[in-house]
């Protein structure tokens, strides 16, 4: 067993997938097949099938043939930009200049004929032909936590079933088995308002690598005095002990997640250079800019280019209950610059066609300007933007009324949006996971992808 040490992490994943594929529905054939082909004791493969509660969570993938990432998913990537707190559609994607609700900013023409964007976004206006903007979200919930759960999971909360975040599902679906890299890297480097992507019923082993203290994972070099041989030997002891323990435990999914975290350590230590922005050219660094959001997006591009399937960058503090226009004067130009550079850079590197860039938020902001010159939470009519993989550029979908109070055309729900995002990267929204005996489609049953924005 020690001989597979170097590659076993991927092995294990492959084996698990194979096993799951075989035991869809928990047939005896699958069970014995899993045991037979496992042949590697102590890796937790068996235990994964014997968990109490979230009985094996396995995608109902085709059982025939060696499990492989479907061709249409190969090489697809996602950069998930999350504007935490709720950015204002009025100051960005859906301006209403001159109206009482419109605020002081004017609108400007874009490369898409007839589409006017907020004046704070001239650089985005210049790449609007690469974007699809949905201006007709009506998602109902206007409280942060619940709305963030709704949008990021793409479906309403159920007390009994905890749904994973869209990014987690995408990472699971898009991850290449032979990769040594993390499937999902999530950045939120400010301490307030931080939300970690939920893995929900998919379990702890789908947890993203969180970058919360800075742009580089901490503790990626061995402690002093522990050389490579010693390091490998003690980790091997740990792995054997832990793997044995997982067998037939109630709650083995947690042990799987725990062991998976250690299995990722080596890969992360080896991938340390990917997190080193000093390796980027001075031009690239200047181009993205030295703001935290700029650096995070440059890092996202670096990771995507290296093969990390999903990277999320959360940019906070859009929750402008007071002084909305001042805060958007600060935040939107930074977003405009970094977002347009990111999309252009991906395009120049030939990555845009295979990389979905999605700009989401928990909700938009109220048409009414409150007494403190702020805008409050508003989920009845707001906007998001997409670019890249699977997205039809230059489509401005949906419409709100002249004051931006109501959707008048193309109303879309949180689940419609989720289905659209899955479709964009080639994931079938109707695909089912299993939670115990219950089949759970990726997107809510009545979700309708917004075909118009898909290429």
């Amino acid at each position, binding site marked *: 067993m020690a001989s597979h040490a170097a590659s076993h992490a991927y092995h294990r994943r492959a084996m698990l997938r194979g096993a799951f594929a075989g035991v869809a529905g*928990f047939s*005896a054939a699958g*069970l014995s097949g899993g045991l037979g082909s496992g042949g590697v004791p102590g890796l937790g493969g068996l235990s994964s099938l014997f*968990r*109490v*509660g979230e*009985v094996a969570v396995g995608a109902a993938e085709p059982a025939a043939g060696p499990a492989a990432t479907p061709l249409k998913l190969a090489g697809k990537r996602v950069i998930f930009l999350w504007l935490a707190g709720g950015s204002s559609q009025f100051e960005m994607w859906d301006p209403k200049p001159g109206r009482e609700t419109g605020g002081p900013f004017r609108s400007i023409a874009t490369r898409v004929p007839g589409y006017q964007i907020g004046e704070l976004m001239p650089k985005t206006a210049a790449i609007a032909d690469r974007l699809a903007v949905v201006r007709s979200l009506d998602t*109902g919930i206007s*409280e942060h*936590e*619940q709305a963030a759960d709704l949008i990021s999971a793409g479906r309403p*909360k*159920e*007390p*009994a079933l*905890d749904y994973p975040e869209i990014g987690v599902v995408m990472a699971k679906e898009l991850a290449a088995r032979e990769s040594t890299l*993390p499937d999902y890297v999530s950045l939120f480097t400010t301490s307030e308002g931080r939300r970690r992507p939920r*893995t*929900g019923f998919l379990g*702890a*082993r789908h*947890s993203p*690598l969180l970058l919360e203290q800075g742009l580089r*994972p*901490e*503790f*990626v070099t*061995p*402690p*002093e*005095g*522990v050389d490579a041989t*010693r390091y490998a*030997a*003690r*980790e091997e*002891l*740990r792995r*054997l*002990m*832990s793997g044995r*323990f*997982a067998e*037939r*435990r*109630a*709650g*083995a999914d*947690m*042990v799987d*997640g*725990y062991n*998976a*975290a*250690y299995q*990722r*350590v080596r890969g*992360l*230590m080896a991938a340390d250079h990917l997190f080193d922005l000093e390796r980027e050219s001075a031009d690239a660094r200047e181009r993205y800019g030295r703001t935290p959001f700029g650096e995070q997006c440059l890092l996202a591009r670096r990771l995507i280019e290296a093969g990390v399937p999903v990277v999320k960058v959360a940019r906070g503090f859009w929750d402008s209950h007071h002084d909305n226009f001042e805060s958007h004067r600060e935040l939107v130009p930074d977003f405009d610059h970094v977002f347009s550079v990111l999309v252009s850079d991906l395009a120049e590197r030939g990555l845009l066609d295979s990389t979905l860039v999605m700009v989401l938020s928990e909700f938009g902001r109220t048409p009414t300007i409150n007494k403190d010159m702020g805008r409050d939470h508003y989920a009845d009519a707001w906007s998001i933007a997409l670019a890249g993989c699977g997205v039809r550029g230059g489509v401005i979908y949906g419409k709100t009324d002249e004051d931006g109070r109501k959707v008048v055309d193309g109303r879309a729900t949180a689940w419609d949006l989720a289905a659209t995002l899955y479709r964009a990267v080639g994931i079938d929204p109707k695909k089912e996971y299993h939670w115990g*005996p219950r089949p759970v489609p990726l997107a809510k049953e009545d979700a309708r992808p917004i075909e118009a924005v898909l290429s």
Partner: protein
Amino acid sequence: MVRFIVTCWLVWGTMAAASAADELGSVVSRVDRLLEQHWAARGLTPARPATNAELARRLTLDLLGRVPTVRESEPLLKESDKTAAAAAKGGPLDPVSDAHAGHVERLLRSAEFPLYFGTVLDEMVQGRMAGNESFVDYLRQSLATGKSWERVFREVLAGGAEGESAKQAALFVDKRVKDIDQLTVDTARGFFGVDISCARCHDHPLVADWTQFHYYGLAAFLRAPGGNKSKTDAAADSDVKFLARNGQEQTARMMFLSGKPFEQWRTAVPTPAEETARWSPRRRLVEMALDDRHFLSRSLVNRLWEQFMGRGLVEPVDQMHSSNPPSVPGVLELLAADLADHGYDPRRAIRVITLCRAYRAASQLEEPSTSPAPVPAAPTAPGPMAPGPTAPGPLAMPPTAQAAAGDFAAMRLKPLSPRQYAVSLTLAAGDQAFDEPSASERRLGRILQVEGLTQAERTLEMETAFGPLLPRFDPRTADFQSSAREALFVSNSEAIQRLVAAEGKNLAARMAQTADDAAAVTMAFAALLQRPPTASERELFGKHLQGAAESVTSASARSERCADVVWALATSAEFRFNH
């Protein structure tokens, strides 16, 4: 104060022990019967009972927040083979062993119990705002003096605690008083097990129980005069005005979560002359909640169950409402009534839970080959109403493995909380001074008749040392997620390396001084995992220690290898989880 409980305990112990134990036993049996019925109905066979050694580790972690020391676990190790054999034969309703029952009582009486369990209650009540030392100490003191949960609830929300502790208790409200919404939501979550935050902006979209009137009705009790940050208008007397989603302004009168408005109680509650305006509405809330009994007792019992079983009877623990029933019928109501009938004594509920069969179940599921044949589900009223999947197929999974976490047919693994992990790691890898009292400490313990004084004092001292470690470990959340961050920290930080490296009389140093490899391995297993190594483990780790024998063995090389054994065991899942 310690003396006080000890005295009570002794009096109670001598006079009423027999009948009280019987009475406790009957509640435990009723819980066991309900679970047995549930298992039978679901066609499940529960996991075998855990051995005494397994139970001792579990219980020490659950009640004292740490693994047992070598001194504590040694006696159990010797009998473990015997009890394991006996345990394997146990049925669903096998009796509680005297050893386990005695252990529960001993730990509940230990000076370490309030010290640790105060932090547990703090997290239950304070949620994200947990960790305020003064408030934790208030809860610790409450546990040490045997305060009822009813009284803690009253003191926290309505004041009335004596002396210094009044200020400490008031911290829950004081820290939130500027934000009435936070106070309302946290009071509902912390004490009543319900999350009504949705109902702030609109009637709860998914739970019919919660309307805006529930939210603002509760807020009306909690609103302090002036200074609140809220969407509510604090001008009126005690009613709260709010904007309903249709834009209409509504007025909410003080109303408890049960839906009872306060008016009906106005005459029933005497208003003491000394009652200050500041506390008065909250005192009314306390009276109503205690009269209701339901919310307060169910929430505490469910949270304690979650603490000990790894999952609440109602899950999530802050979603106790009509459309989210308990996963096992009857148990929650039984425990809640028992708690209320016994003066809201948290120790009472802890006794019942830790003695019941579900708590005593092993965490390991039955082997497929050795499990009994599945008992087919036998609903009394079969027909179209029969829920769930049909009877298992001929080659179905073994019964326990089919169980859901909410069936409690096996002890679900519980990830150690950061605090449990840090204390246990420091303790198990460290020297043995922790439970080595000095002569005077021993004497004091005898005089006061208190066990664990030394340990409690050492733990308190350790708190500052392990404090910085806590945020590095993954929190014990309902959906526990292991992060690569913790793994990187534990693998690569100097802080962890210092803990495991041989120094002074710590574990690695003691191992290094033990010439016999097998003995050194046994020593490490005993300290960290409270069990002897299996034959294959002894061989594997023995080989690791020998490794250098082939080359030139230096003392430092052996020390390093010992440290690596300590590290490997301390980072194994067996150590990281309570099982």
